């Protein structure tokens, strides 16, 4: 099928323009339209309690998306994983972003965390399903995209390797969502410990075949962009700290950071942590790619699986291009194939019948032969009998003398 398609694809000719036409303005039109429409981005954050989910989100978007945790929840034990989402509309340079952050409090907090990913997986899939139903509606003018575009998974900075719950969760989620693993509270690890920790995490991820989101680049892009992407890739998983407090440094600068007795760690200092890189990847450079991957790969996979399980069968013939001569040839060949098949069938039947008849004839021949032999025997016997009779008669018709008669009588008396 593909061969036929490529053979028939129209040849693309590169033509040189002789004047300015103006369709190079197309990207700007797209830009203006999308800025007018605004963007939306849905992010899910998963991690244990106290690992820094809310602080990270607040720091990333420089907005208090999540309010401070209530201190009066002493002794309250949460059962199971809850899903709570918060939306905020933020604006920067005239560009509006409708940001939805989905929080998952209760993940990994119980003693038995065997199924703590189940509610999260269900939530992601239900968002896909909701989009699917919207797509299949009759009136599709207003589709709202609630699908999760990226899932930030927060890793505890133990310094050893991934924990069992981390591996389990990522294995179950990586085919449904863009996974971005992030190490939080990274100020607890020194530079060497961090390097070792990251390499062990990557080793674990590769060993278990987990697909995390990696920035891709094309060979035709700017070398600057490529270098940036390569740099980003080398730092994955990002090790960040979050802070929404502003500290005044000894030299007078006011920065976002954390104040310790031994020093100040700055959120936006690349030497201190990878926060800048994470923000760049998530918001500046790869937001569109995240959305694209969600839509084209993850969502489509889910859709195909869902429809197949619902009973729809894949009919690949609708993908072929329509071509009359090819079609006629195909029809003819199909017809011929059918004819030859019928022919062979008929000959087979004919032969079979012939064989049957032959065997029958043979059988009757044998029967006849047997009967013939029998009759011959009977005839032989009769002939012998007749000959004997004849002999007897011959012996009887000898001239009879009186002696003979007496003798005969005597013979007879004796007998």
């Amino acid at each position, binding site marked *: 099928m593909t061969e036929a398609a490529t053979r028939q694809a129209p040849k693309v000719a590169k033509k040189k323009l002789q004047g300015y036409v103006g369709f190079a303005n197309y990207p700007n039109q797209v830009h203006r339209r999308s800025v007018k429409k605004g963007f939306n981005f849905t992010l899910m954050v998963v991690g*244990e*309690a*106290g*690992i*820094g989910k809310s602080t990270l989100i607040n720091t990333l978007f420089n907005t208090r998306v999540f309010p401070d*945790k209530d201190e009066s929840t*002493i*002794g309250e*034990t949460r059962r199971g994983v809850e899903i709570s989402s918060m939306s905020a509309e933020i604006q920067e340079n005239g560009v509006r972003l409708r940001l939805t952050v989905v929080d998952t409090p209760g993940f990994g*907090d*119980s*003693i*038995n*965390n*065997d199924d*703590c990913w189940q509610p999260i997986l269900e939530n992601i899939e239900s968002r896909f399903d909701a989009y699917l139903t919207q797509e299949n509606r009759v009136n599709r003018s207003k589709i709202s995209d609630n699908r999760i575009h990226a899932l930030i998974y927060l890793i*505890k*900075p*133990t*310094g*050893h*390797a991934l*924990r*069992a*719950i981390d591996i*389990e969760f990522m294995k179950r989620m990586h085919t449904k969502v863009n996974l971005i693993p992030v190490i939080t*509270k990274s*100020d*607890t690890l*020194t*530079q060497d410990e961090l390097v070792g920790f990251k390499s*062990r995490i990557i*080793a*674990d991820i590769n*060993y278990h075949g987990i697909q995390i989101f990696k920035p891709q680049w094309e060979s035709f892009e700017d070398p600057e962009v490529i270098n940036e992407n390569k740099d980003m890739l080398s730092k994955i998983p990002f090790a960040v700290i979050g802070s929404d407090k502003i500290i005044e440094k000894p030299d007078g600068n006011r920065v976002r950071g*954390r*104040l*310790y*007795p*031994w*020093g*100040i*760690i*700055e959120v936006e200092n690349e*030497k*201190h942590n990878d926060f800048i890189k994470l923000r760049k990847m998530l918001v500046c450079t790869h937001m569109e790619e995240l959305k694209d991957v969600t839509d084209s790969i993850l969502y489509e996979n889910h859709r195909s699986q869902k429809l197949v399980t619902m009973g729809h069968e894949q009919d690949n013939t609708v993908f072929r291009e329509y071509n009359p001569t090819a079609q006629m040839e195909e029809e003819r060949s199909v017809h011929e194939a059918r004819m030859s098949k019928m022919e062979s069938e008929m000959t087979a039947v004919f032969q079979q019948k012939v064989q049957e008849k032959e065997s029958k004839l043979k059988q009757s021949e044998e029967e006849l032969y047997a009967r013939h032999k029998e009759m011959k025997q009977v005839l032989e016997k009769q002939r012998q009998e007749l000959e004997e009779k004849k002999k007897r008669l011959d012996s009887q018709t000898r001239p009879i003398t009186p002696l003979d008669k007496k003798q005969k009588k005597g013979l007879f008396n004796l007998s």
Partner: protein
Amino acid sequence: MERKFLKRGMNFNIILVGESGMGKTTLVNTIFAGHLVDSQGRRTVQGPQRKTTEIVPTTQVIEENNVTLRLTVVDTPGFGDQTNNEGCWVPVIKYIKDQHAAYLERELKPQRERSINDTRVHACLYFLNPGSKGLRPIDIEVLKRLTEVVNVIPVLAKADSTTVEERAAFKKRIKEELAMQRIQAYPYPSEEDDEEDIALNNKIKELSPFAVVGSENVFNENGAPVRGRRHAWGIINVDNPEHCDFVHLRNFMLRTHLYDLIEVTAQRHYESFRTQQLRQIKEMRAAQAQNATQMAQQQQQIQPGATLFKQQA
């Protein structure tokens, strides 16, 4: 008596309980100023993924100023590391009780040794997660059970990720939760304490849980060797009381309360274990005796019946 003490030396056994990656091994190596134990964390992809809590005791003999200390450090790799952590404390409790049982057995023997080798666990360092805003469900479960059999000293692990305010808030929260759940951590108030002891205990209670940072690395800061952790934004000095409570913990455990820990283990935990065991044995014996009398009664009932039978016959 002091000379006998010096000659005999002491046994000190501590058990470390906490999830992997909390810094248990590093802390022990820091407290005893030497590389005594190796970390049991998973370092390779094919490394052991423990399915249950293992108990790994290591014994060392260390000496300082002619005082020998037979130190046993019991590590618990695998604790709290699985997705389903129900019952992960069972091997720990069992180990502690086994040590009590072993001591009891040797005590009850008709011919006792002159000095019984004390393997009972004298202290348990319980490592709390620095991030959680309080006690997690697993912490509550385990602490309730641990405080019944051993002296529990709660410790705030990896304190270098907490600012001073966060630490204070965390400590306050933990103390409130411990009180609410009726969990009694060491040190325990006692009537025979004098004023000095009470003051000391109060100070320790205030600092509890100790926010510690451990390190075996030594750096050069301003010419002086400093044990600590070096970051791009500063060096954490383990021995600096302003940076962390390590010094307080070490002094408390070794310099002031070492004897008390051993004694309280013997007096409080061991005795309660012993009482339980003896009571159980008594109950068992009583049950056996009851069974025996029941059987005897039944026999008697049969006996008159038998004589009746004989008469009839």
